[in-house]
């Protein structure tokens, strides 16, 4: 047993908290779900291995003699994956700064603050590395099985990517604190995390659209210009890719450099972490003044509810960044739409399902916020308004928000093809309404701060929402293509809704 207050003791405490946090995230806080979670994870792992086998087995023979285009593709994949890790790490770091749970206990205890925060940063790094290794495992396993154990070096590279992502997230967040102060850092860091998560993918897609008019992620990376301007084969730039391919020297270099960057960052920033955490804790109790409105506005009951929902959502930057994350992915298809004007139906078939699916997913998140995460449920229920009208107002609020975001796309499309525009609008409306109905069927009282965990509170709702959106997206694509086969996915989507109605918990 380690001595109380030592680094090992603090690390054990942090690991216990991490473990319980992770478990709660997966089981939604219900113990009896643990066995279900284990089964689900096992099934997921097997499914991911099958998917990985289909996706990467053809690359198993690629070896260290690979040419520049292959190394570019591999490095591009690593950068895209790293951007997602950075996004995750930034969210973790921001949460660590602004969580007040044990801050006062820590800062009033006789333990070295620097030591505590160094361990806390290490905990974030361990979580990020574990996530990276777990997500990469199916692909690395398949490559190692098919192409030899040399591929196992990829685990070291992935771990190094997690470590560097954490170090960069820490440095970025601390830099934000110094540049814009504690008050604005939270908002900017959260939005930055969301944008970074999507940025590399979006940037590559935008580049691909401009270069070849397709959505293929690597089209831009394989262009002649990129190959011609890539660094030489002997440079350190390719070490991560070479380490993945089984170069032991490159692997050791990558891992050592990653560890040095992480340790250096922790040593450099651990003292400031406490100061910034204190500053962050002080921010939450400050007064935020709104623009002074002189008069009450007339409103029906439903309008008052809708207005309230929109106002609450607009004023929560974290929720805005979380929900708009999905909308960011729409930028490339929107761009594709813009530059392929007048090219006929083919482009529509590509973008309509993407937009319809994004609308369905966005509506699901918004529906959870408005329907399940009502901050004052008793108050609203004590008002002289029928429960049905309350629900209708909330559904209208969701559909209204989705319409506001997606209507410009449908209108833009109408300039070129009214038929495609109508199909898109109907697809958005139906997919959004379906996701909202699914959230309605599985609604449970929750807090807005639990948004991240909403998907674990009802896995059936999550899967139903995803499959419903996919089915409506497929139906919209087929309808845009002019085939009557669109009825088939539409029927599947309706069957999903029927199934949801059958298995959803009964209501009073």
């Amino acid at each position: 047993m380690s001595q109380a207050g030592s680094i090992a003791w603090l690390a054990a405490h942090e690991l216990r908290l991490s473990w319980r946090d992770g478990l709660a995230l997966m089981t939604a806080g219900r113990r009896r779900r643990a066995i279900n979670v284990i089964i689900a994870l096992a099934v997921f792992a097997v499914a991911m291995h099958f998917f990985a086998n289909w996706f990467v087995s053809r690359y198993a023979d690629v070896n260290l003699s690979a040419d520049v285009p292959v190394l570019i593709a591999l490095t591009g994949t690593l950068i895209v994956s790293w951007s997602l890790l950075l996004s995750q790490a930034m969210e973790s770091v921001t949460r660590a700064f602004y969580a007040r749970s044990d801050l006062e206990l820590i800062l009033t205890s006789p333990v070295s603050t620097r030591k505590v925060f160094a361990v806390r940063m290490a905990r974030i790094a361990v979580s990020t590395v574990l996530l990276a290794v777990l997500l990469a495992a199916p692909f690395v396993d398949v490559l190692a099985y098919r192409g030899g154990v040399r591929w196992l070096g990829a685990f070291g590279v992935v771990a190094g990517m997690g470590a560097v992502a954490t170090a960069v997230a820490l440095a970025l967040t601390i830099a934000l604190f110094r540049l814009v102060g504690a008050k604005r850092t939270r908002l900017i860091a959260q939005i930055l995390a969301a944008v970074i998560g999507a940025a590399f993918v979006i940037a590559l897609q935008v580049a691909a659209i401009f270069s070849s008019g397709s959505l293929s992620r690597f089209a831009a990376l394989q262009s002649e210009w990129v190959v011609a301007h890539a660094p030489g084969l002997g440079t350190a730039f390719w070490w991560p890719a070479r380490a993945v391919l089984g170069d032991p020297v490159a692997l050791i270099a990558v891992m050592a450099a990653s560890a040095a960057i992480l340790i250096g960052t922790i040593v450099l920033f651990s003292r400031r972490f406490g100061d910034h955490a204190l500053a962050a804790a002080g921010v939450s109790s400050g007064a935020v003044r709104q623009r002074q409105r002189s008069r009450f506005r007339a409103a029906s009951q439903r309008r008052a509810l809708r207005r309230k929902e929109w106002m609450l959502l607009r004023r929560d930057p974290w929720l805005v960044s979380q929900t708009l994350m999905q909308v960011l992915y729409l930028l490339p298809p929107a761009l594709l739409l813009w530059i392929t004007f007048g090219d006929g139906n083919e482009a529509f078939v590509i973008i309509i399902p993407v937009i319809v699916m994004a609308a369905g997913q966005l509506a699901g998140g918004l529906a959870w916020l408005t329907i399940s995460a009502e901050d004052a449920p008793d108050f609203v229920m004590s008002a002289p308004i029928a429960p049905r009208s309350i629900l209708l107002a909330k559904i209208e609020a969701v559909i209204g928000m989705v319409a506001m975001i997606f209507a410009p796309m449908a209108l833009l499309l109408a300039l070129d093809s009214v038929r495609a525009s109508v199909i898109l609008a109907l697809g958005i409306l139906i997919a959004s309404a379906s996701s909202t109905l699914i959230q309605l069927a599985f609604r449970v009282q929750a807090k807005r701060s639990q948004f991240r965990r909403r998907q674990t509170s009802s896995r059936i709702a999550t899967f139903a929402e995803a499959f419903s959106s996919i089915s409506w997206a497929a139906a919209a694509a087929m309808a845009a293509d002019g085939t009557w086969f669109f009825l088939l996915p539409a029927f599947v989507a309706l069957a999903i809704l029927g199934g949801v109605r059958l298995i959803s918990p009964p209501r009073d």
Partner: protein
Amino acid sequence: MPLVRSLMRLSTIALALRGLRKTFDRPAVDGLDLTVYGGEFYALVGPNGAGKTTTLRMVTGLLRPDAGSIVLDGIDALADPIAAKQVTAWVSDESMIYDKLTPFEYLEFVGGLWRMDPRLAEAQARELLDILGLMPHAHERCEGFSKGMRQKVALAGALVHEPKLIILDEPLTGLDAASARQVKTVLHKRVRAGNTVIMTTHILDVAERMADRIGIIARGRLIAEGTLKELHRQTGQSGTLEDTFLTLVATEAA
């Protein structure tokens, strides 16, 4: 004339509960009969788990009773809950407000839910914010407010639509002396204006000083009711409400 007005008010029944029952794992409310008159300040006291909050949640339409009837200002609350809610306000011990709204916006929202004329709602809101000392914070988001300020915003929300029956569940919990006094003053004003207040509280001194009548509830049933003097007569004691309350509850438990 004031006496006649008072007698006229008290002749109307603001709330009548008959045979009210609600069972969860065990009976929470067990055949409760209760009558509160118009213009009365009624305190409902009882030990933890006695059924006070469950009773009030049924009255406000948040819970449906298993059996019994609820009549609010002559309205059958189970048959016409919307009409009953129109004349009722509910304040819980957990302030039911929105962190991201300002008190001004919150009261505007309440006015919309109760279908008030916006000009009247605004006038009421300004008056309440002023009385409760919230005017300087009227345009600040509630997220930075103390427990007392939040509770006062919730109270303003309950009163802005001029309810006939004001139901409060532990409204003074966690309030400092100044805030508690402001809340008590506002409630007394409402009673003097002819409204009815029903309040649960664990602070027996407050019940003793504020209430016209006190109902003591235990195991989901009303075990004693009346003015402090009437309660003294029932127990044969002459001490504080606390002494009387403890005697009655101990007798019921025995």
